[in-house]
């Protein structure tokens, strides 16, 4: 069977073709983040099995390729969570307080954002940047990380996310705002300092 029509109505490569079609791409992506061939292979395998379990729920809103790589990215974030020995504490209030402290009472920056030495369009090519990005997502509170990964890894619209998570769309925008602001701060601290 070359491909099968999924419930989205579009033909999607079936699971038996995934390793052949996307194995190399997934492996390269994982290897570039982890620098450990065995660990990279393990995470690709974990991602493929997870994808198989979730395939019935795949609605074809993104391509299989984007979807598989999104699951792999989640596995990489999980891996960093494990290796960081992260406590499963939802430090949500801390994030809100941290974002509030980025601005003074008049709404101006307390610490001004720096110019990053990264081409916004080709950011994915800068390996170190992407590496620290995954680690910064791993440090986020679970709720923020979840919503952020749905939006940016799986490229799901906010209206679909709020339907899926049973939250209002304005709540979704606020959560994404907090996630992005925390991420940029984390990247600025860890990536810029490392680059110096």
């Amino acid at each position, binding site marked *: 069977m070359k491909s099968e029509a999924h419930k989205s109505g579009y033909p999607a490569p079936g699971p038996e073709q995934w390793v052949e079609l996307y194995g190399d791409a997934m492996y390269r992506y994982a290897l570039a983040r982890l620098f450990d061939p065995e660990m990279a292979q393990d995470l690709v395998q974990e991602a493929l099995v997870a994808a198989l379990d979730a395939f019935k729920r795949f609605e074809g809103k993104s391509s299989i390729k984007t979807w598989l790589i999104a699951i792999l990215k989640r596995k990489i974030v999980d891996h960093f969570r494990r290796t960081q020995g992260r406590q499963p504490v939802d430090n949500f209030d801390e994030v809100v307080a941290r974002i509030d402290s980025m601005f003074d009472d008049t709404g101006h920056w307390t610490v001004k954002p720096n110019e990053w030495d990264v081409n916004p369009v080709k950011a994915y090519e800068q390996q170190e940047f992407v590496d620290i990005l995954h680690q910064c997502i791993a440090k986020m509170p679970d709720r923020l990380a979840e919503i952020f990964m749905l939006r940016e890894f799986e490229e799901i619209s906010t209206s679909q996310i709020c339907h899926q998570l049973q939250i209002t769309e304005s709540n979704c925008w606020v959560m994404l705002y907090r996630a*992005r602001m925390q991420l940029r701060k984390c990247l600025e601290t860890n990536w810029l300092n490392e680059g110096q």
Partner: protein
Amino acid sequence: MPRWMINCKEHSRLASLGLDQQLSFWDRLNARVHRLICPPCRHLKKQLDSIRNACRGGLAEYDEDRKAGRHTAVTLPEDACQRMKAVLRDHLHKQ
């Protein structure tokens, strides 16, 4: 700063919102005018764009290699490939 102009905090909210939905004409104009006079907020906008592109990229480089017919790229070792196919087959049968 004129009273009608947005501040950095409001600009940061709009910069994020603009990644999730089409901003209104006035919001877009306000954000642009603010960035004209505020270098830190120009940096913020680029930072948010970089984060988006870093998250959503990943396979483009691989696709370019394939299109260009380059075979120098790292590939999944054959034994790992076979192992994964076997694991997926087993898993499929169990379903």
